[in-house]
């Protein structure tokens, strides 16, 4: 039977841009160009490698987000995923991680899955907890933050490099897996891949398709509230000296003056 892989991806404001908050204190998605979150490219890459190693596999990329989020799906499809699912609904604006995980769980179940793959965190919210919550909601094993992953005979194995130890993990499918940026460089889409992606199917779903009430998601349904967002004050300009042979000593003097030595 075909191995059904669903990769959850996020469309985020470019992290190298000048990101801001909108007036309602949600992420401003207009001021900065969006793109497929860089950390999700690693999940797409591992999905492609796992699919290659399997006899038969199908990769669905799934995203929740506004109209433009289709760009993230197209990027993943051009890398080699087979089809896309886009959950889009005006009521989703301002949804927090709890609501997003609900939508993803329903959508993953709608698609059907053996393996859900995620990146280690988004590059905008950066919480890094969505895969764990998704596993909790789906009631399947959580095999997260892997720097190496393999799937064989209905079992997923991988290495999780923690602060104190490196752990070898093992779980039965179905499971939710997340991979880190150490899992292997993501491929660039080929020209052929980009052309092929234009013809790949993308299914659009809204909240009613997934049986989710509007009040369970969105800014109103969020279980957390941002009350204030302030731009961090610019650091005041420091002293810059050119090394003329005494640079190390000058730096030492500064550290003494600040009582670090």
């Amino acid at each position, binding site marked *: 039977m075909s191995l059904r892989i669903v990769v959850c991806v996020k469309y985020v404001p470019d*992290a190298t841009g000048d990101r801001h*908050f909108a007036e309602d204190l949600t992420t401003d998605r207009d001021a900065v160009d969006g793109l497929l979150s860089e950390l999700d490219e690693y999940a797409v890459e591992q999905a492609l490698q796992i699919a290659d190693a399997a006899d038969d596999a199908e990769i669905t990329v799934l995203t929740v987000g506004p109209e433009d989020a289709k760009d993230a799906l197209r990027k993943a499809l051009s890398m080699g995923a087979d089809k896309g699912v886009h959950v889009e609904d005006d009521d989703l604006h301002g949804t927090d991680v709890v609501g997003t995980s609900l939508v993803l769980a329903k959508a993953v179940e709608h698609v059907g899955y053996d393996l859900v793959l995620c990146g*280690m965190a988004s590059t905008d919210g950066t919480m890094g907890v969505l895969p764990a919550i998704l*596993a909790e909601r789906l009631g399947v094993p959580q095999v997260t933050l892997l720097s190496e992953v393999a799937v064989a005979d209905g079992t997923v194995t991988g290495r999780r490099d923690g*602060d104190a130890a490196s752990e070898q993990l093992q779980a039965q499918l179905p499971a939710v897996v997340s991979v880190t940026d150490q899992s292997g460089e993501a491929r660039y889409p080929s020209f052929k891949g980009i052309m092929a992606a234009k013809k790949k199917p993308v299914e659009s779903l809204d909240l009613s398709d997934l049986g989710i009430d509007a009040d369970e998601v969105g800014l109103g349904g969020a*279980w957390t509230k*941002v009350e204030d967002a302030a731009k961090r004050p610019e650091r005041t300009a420091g002293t*810059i000296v*050119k090394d003329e042979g005494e640079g190390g000593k000058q730096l*030492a003097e500064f550290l003494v003056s600040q009582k670090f030595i």
Partner: protein
Amino acid sequence: MAEVLVYVDHVDGAVRKPTLELLTLARRVGEPVAVALGNGAADTAATLAEHGAVKVLTADAPEFAEYLVVPKVDALQAAYEAVSPAAVLVPSSAEGKEIAARLAVRIGSGIITDAVDIEAGADGPVATQSVFAAAFTTKSRVSKGTPVITVKPNSAPVEAAPAAGAVEALSVTFGDAAKGTKIVSRTPRESSGRPELTEAAIVVSGGRGVNGAENFHVIEELADSLGAAVGASRAAVDAGWYPHSNQVGQTGKSVSPQLYVANGISGAIQHRAGMQTSKTIVAVNKDPEAPIFDLVDYGVVGDLFQVVPQLTEEVKARKG
């Protein structure tokens, strides 16, 4: 006064510093009740009591070491149900965040991760976060259920605040999901003998300018003279010069030490995200246009292989 659950990060009974910082924050919101799990759990009690824990709930079972994350969620949930706390605070390690998040969804509560400060507020604790690569500071609160908040290391001082710290055994029943992910083997990370990167008061980092694994000893020697942790930029890690566990930046560790010393690091957004909130920043870089110089309190434009060893010698000489 309401009780606040504090999840204890410890190694065989030795409490790690971020947990003591959590106790300082917990005391602003209520009476800290600590939850310590696994081997050596009961040995944490004396230290926790010194820093304000009124109670220490402990549980040990093989499941905590044999299966990933979920057994600890089951135990924290048992503590939550036993105590009915006003808030649950967890250290912001990778595992801590996952435990907190699963607990939050189970108990129908909102979650805030990576807080750098917590204050009491009229509608519950208010958490400060540093977001968008530390370009913004936000204040947020949990608006549904019992606030579950994870807190980054170095967010509060460690304070002595002697309390009873009475040890009570926590009764835990593991659910069906607890044995979902088996930890087949565990290889402890070799200790460098240096301070933990996220907890260190001083961090000395090297980047592309270090130009090779064989040159990193220059960075390490400065770090050792200052009693600092060693960090590395993504460029240095991706080049294989230094381990990923030492990476500072968006996809590595986020640090907020008293002093950050950036050597041969240009200061790309990816790196700034992980160190921008450091109190004092100094840099050595041969490129006067490097963006890192926009952040520094003191910068030296020059060859790090000249400047850094000279600095190391000065530090050693002055420390005698």
